[in-house]
């Protein structure tokens, strides 16, 4: 039996029909990229799934309606929004609140945050809205992954993360991938392509594509990379330093590691410097 079931789900805001009879089933182990342009209905579908919107038709997670059984259902759902909420409460209190309502251990969330490179001890008294974009994202990921969830709903989850944190994040997802279903929303498929084994595309409130894709890329894999340039470039240097690359041969070559699922994103970045590049070498090794 599918874990998530949408049956003829409709949603209307006044005169505008945003979801037009969605039928979709997602099983445990499915990692679904929910893609589509702005206004396609992705966010509305996610809000219906989380029981935040009332809607026509049936939405069920393990046979239970998320609206009627919200506490039981949402205990097993981890959600990371694309835009962090502008909460003013201190970081420590947010963790306590989340752990308290989820009946979870705050220590686990703190541990996941630490793995992502976020030391909570130093920032626990800081208001959440004063953190940088990347720190907020790491904290929200830690709250979602630092508990026993069986469904992860992620809205552009890695958009604000640095390459190192992205690699760790992919590793954290890999730990959950067999036990949990994942719904990863993005308006660009290349951002999430290597994380998923299924693509669902939405357009104007309908599903226009539902396809399984090869998931041969191990989430924990790492690509050792060497880039060779025709001449040194400061702009290029600044960009690849953000990916943790180090200069060789007076800036004519750069070496570093790229997380396997990040390969498309990395190549997208390199495409901006196509004229400078003389050689690109990528070699995959498991678990870095």
């Amino acid at each position, binding site marked *: 039996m599918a874990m998530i079931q949408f049956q003829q789900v409709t949603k209307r805001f006044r005169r505008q029909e945003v979801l037009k009879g969605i039928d979709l089933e997602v099983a445990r182990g499915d990692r679904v990229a929910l893609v589509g342009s702005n206004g396609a209905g992705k966010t509305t579908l996610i809000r219906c799934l989380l029981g935040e919107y009332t809607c026509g038709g049936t939405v069920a997670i393990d046979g239970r309606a998320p609206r009627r059984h919200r506490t039981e259902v949402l205990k097993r759902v981890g959600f990371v*929004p694309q835009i*962090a*909420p502008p*909460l003013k409460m201190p970081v420590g209190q947010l963790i306590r609140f989340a752990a308290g309502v989820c009946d979870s251990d705050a220590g686990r969330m703190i541990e996941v945050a630490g793995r992502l490179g976020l030391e909570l001890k130093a920032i626990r008294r800081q208001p959440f809205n004063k953190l940088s974009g990347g720190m907020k994202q790491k904290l929200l990921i830690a709250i979602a992954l630092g508990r026993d969830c069986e469904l992860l709903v992620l809205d552009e989850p890695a958009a604000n993360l640095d390459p190192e944190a992205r690699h760790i994040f992919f590793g954290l997802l890999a730990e959950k991938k067999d036990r949990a279903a994942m719904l990863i929303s993005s308006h660009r498929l290349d951002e999430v392509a290597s994380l998923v084994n299924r693509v669902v595309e939405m357009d104007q409130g309908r599903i226009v594509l539902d396809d399984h894709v090869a998931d041969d890329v191990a989430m924990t894999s790492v690509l050792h990379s060497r880039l060779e340039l025709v001449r040194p470039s400061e702009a290029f240097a600044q960009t690849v330093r953000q990916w943790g690359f180090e200069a060789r041969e007076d800036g004519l070559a750069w070496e570093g590691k790229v997380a396997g699922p990040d390969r498309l994103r990395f190549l997208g970045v390199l495409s901006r410097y196509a004229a400078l590049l003389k050689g690109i070498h990528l070699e995959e090794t498991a678990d870095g």
Partner: protein
Amino acid sequence: MKHLKLTALADISESLRSRWFIVYTLVFGGVVVALFVSGLTESRVMGFTGLSRLLVTYLQITMAILPLFVLITTVRSVAGDREAGIFEYMLSLPVSLSSWFWGKLLGRFFVVFLPVILAMFGAVIWGRLKGVEIPWAQVWLYTAFLVSLAWCFLGIGMFLSTLARSSDVATGAAFIVWLFLLLFLDLILLGALIREGLPPDTIIAIALANPLQVFRTGSMLLFDPQLVLLGPAAYVILDNFGEKGYLAWTIFYPLALGTFFAWLGYRIFRRGDLP
């Protein structure tokens, strides 16, 4: 219960860091300081003197400011939180809707009430230090009146917040409600209605239904047991309620009204779209 407590604490924490709370605290603290500085405790107006004089003035000012502050800040922050995506995230966590709504209400009540009561008891402590006699019975009754008034407008504010989908609409609606109740105070529209020859029972029913007027008359009753200031309407109030009965009405009616509106707001909140 745990979720309720966590939500209330989270709301308190959010509010204490808000700009509105700083302004709000400064206003009420400033009012008391201004009343002391102006030497109000030494003046005698209409028979009131000392701390009683200060408290009666403080309450009249509170009646004008507190409802508007409570309404505007509640609707702006609740509807604003919804607009900013705070509801989307917080309600994706497994907190029950009843705990969320009532926890928010209780947290907000604490934050709204704290500066008002601190300012009032600050005045009492100051008065004591200055050797002014403390009218304790009045102080406790005033505290009960303030609790009741704050709760009433908080309930109305939460109701308006669940109805309005944007903070601008919510703010506009809150202002209109406040203005409407202000117009039905005895000094303004009630006076006009009396002039137009409306039956006295209708006029008095309107006055008894308006929480602002109830608070005003109740606070007046404490210092003027015959309600001389109120004129002929005093006979109806005292004949039908008696002094103690009206004091009880001043405490329990706004509490009941606020609870009713909060409950209505909760029903709408529970049935509608959350973010």
